[in-house]
């Protein structure tokens, strides 16, 4: 799993934004990985129009006022605002040039990046670190600034990667999902590795599928969907969910980097038996669980009427350059894969809250993951 995270966070994937060469390279690599694991792979292309906001050159902001801060740094002191109009070339003005809105950086001083948000407005907009914004606002003579906001809306093509390990045979059919896309690098090469959000989730579900492929009874169907475009409004799952066979049980993993106090779980659709299996798996594997909103691809599958749980296990450095592979804890990956594996096995064997683990699946999974982690 560690190797998968490091690979997806590598420079050649350039942050894996939907519709980019880096994103497509990730598709190719993941497809090969699934084939090597024994899956029948299918790629599903889909258009995403009018959603993705692209910063196509480095925005600039200079403050010329007396006592001003001079040359604020993009992504540290200010960043794009998704509602901005495109202002490709620097323009100097006082008051009417555009809008500066205050924004707090994260704990490490980064301003997180997003690629889908409010509809663009008529004026250029930049988000400015709150204290700097206050400085600009209270400058006694008013602030003259020079700014460029090169941001545009792009139409792109996304690609979901589907891997069928076992075809449905009329019995239980399991679908493990995780998105692989990120928000992409900044135009000056600042890297957004997206190791936690969500290379870690991808690694864990692939590992779980590899184990389950060899461990589940023959009549159980098993597939994975590695989804594109989650950062663009969960576009990949919106495309896929309506096509999934009714009754398929869906488990989505959104982050597997840092377990913290407990894994967050949101359920949708007729997921009672799935929740019971997950609860039992949590006790078998020692993973604490708590009900918590998980607004991710799982909601697309739940909305399609499928029994679904979304599980989240932490994303340190969320959508910043600090989301590097070393932030992903091996233990969190292992716990995530074990939890998914045990849940699937419990479902396959008809779990209930009072049942122990008569087949020793959790221990078997643990030993397997110790070898593979």
């Amino acid at each position, binding site marked *: 799993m560690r190797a998968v995270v490091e690979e997806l966070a590598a420079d050649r994937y350039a942050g894996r934004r939907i519709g980019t060469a880096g994103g497509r390279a990730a598709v190719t690599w993941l497809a090969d990985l699934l084939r090597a694991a024994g899956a029948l792979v299918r790629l599903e292309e889909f258009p995403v129009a009018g959603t993705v906001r692209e910063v196509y050159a480095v925005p600039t902001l200079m403050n010329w006022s007396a006592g001003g801060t001079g040359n604020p740094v993009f992504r540290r002191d200010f960043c794009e605002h998704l509602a901005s109009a495109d202002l490709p070339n620097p323009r100097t003005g006082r008051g009417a040039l555009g809008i500066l809105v205050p*924004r707090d950086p994260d704990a490490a001083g980064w301003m997180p990046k997003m690629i889908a*948000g409010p509809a663009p407005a008529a004026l250029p907009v930049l988000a400015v670190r709150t204290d700097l914004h206050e400085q600009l606002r209270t400058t006694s003579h008013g602030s003259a600034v020079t700014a460029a906001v090169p941001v545009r809306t792009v139409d792109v093509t996304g690609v979901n990667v589907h891997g069928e390990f076992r075809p449905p045979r009329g019995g239980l059919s399991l679908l493990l999902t995780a998105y692989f896309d990120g928000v992409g690098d900044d135009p000056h090469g600042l890297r957004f590795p997206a190791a936690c959000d969500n290379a870690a989730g991808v690694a864990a579900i692939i590992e779980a599928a590899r184990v389950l492929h060899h461990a589940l009874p023959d009549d159980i169907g098993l597939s994975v969907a590695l989804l594109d475009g989650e950062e663009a*409004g969960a576009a990949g799952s919106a495309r896929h969910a309506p096509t999934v066979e009714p009754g398929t049980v869906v488990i989505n993993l959104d982050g597997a980097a*840092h377990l913290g106090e407990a894994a*967050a*779980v949101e359920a949708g659709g*007729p997921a009672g038996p799935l929740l019971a299996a997950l609860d039992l798996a949590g006790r*078998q594997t020692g993973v*604490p669980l708590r009900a918590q909103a998980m607004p991710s691809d799982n909601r697309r599958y739940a909305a399609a009427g499928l029994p679904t*749980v979304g599980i989240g296990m932490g994303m340190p450095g969320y959508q910043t350059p600090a989301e590097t592979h070393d932030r992903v804890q091996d233990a969190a990956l292992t716990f995530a894969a074990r939890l998914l594996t045990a849940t699937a096995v419990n479902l396959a064997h008809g779990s209930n809250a009072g049942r122990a683990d008569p087949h020793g699946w959790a221990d078997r999974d643990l030993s397997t993951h110790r070898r593979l982690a």
Partner: protein
Amino acid sequence: MSTQATGPVGGFTGDPAEAFNPPAAGGCCGSPATGTGPAGGQTEVCCGTAAEAQESGGCCGATAKAEAVASGTGCCG
């Protein structure tokens, strides 16, 4: 637990069915979830309301998500 979970501490604390109607993450993101479990149930999302999510074409209200991130609370898919 940091990452050193051990056997007896796992599983849900409380009723697993609460996952059908989960609270929003701490400080994040807008309206609390008030979803319903059964298929076809209307689910409120943590990044704004279900109506905002639908309007944004995603699983979150895009504006609410942007505001949550902007305010440093971080969130959501």
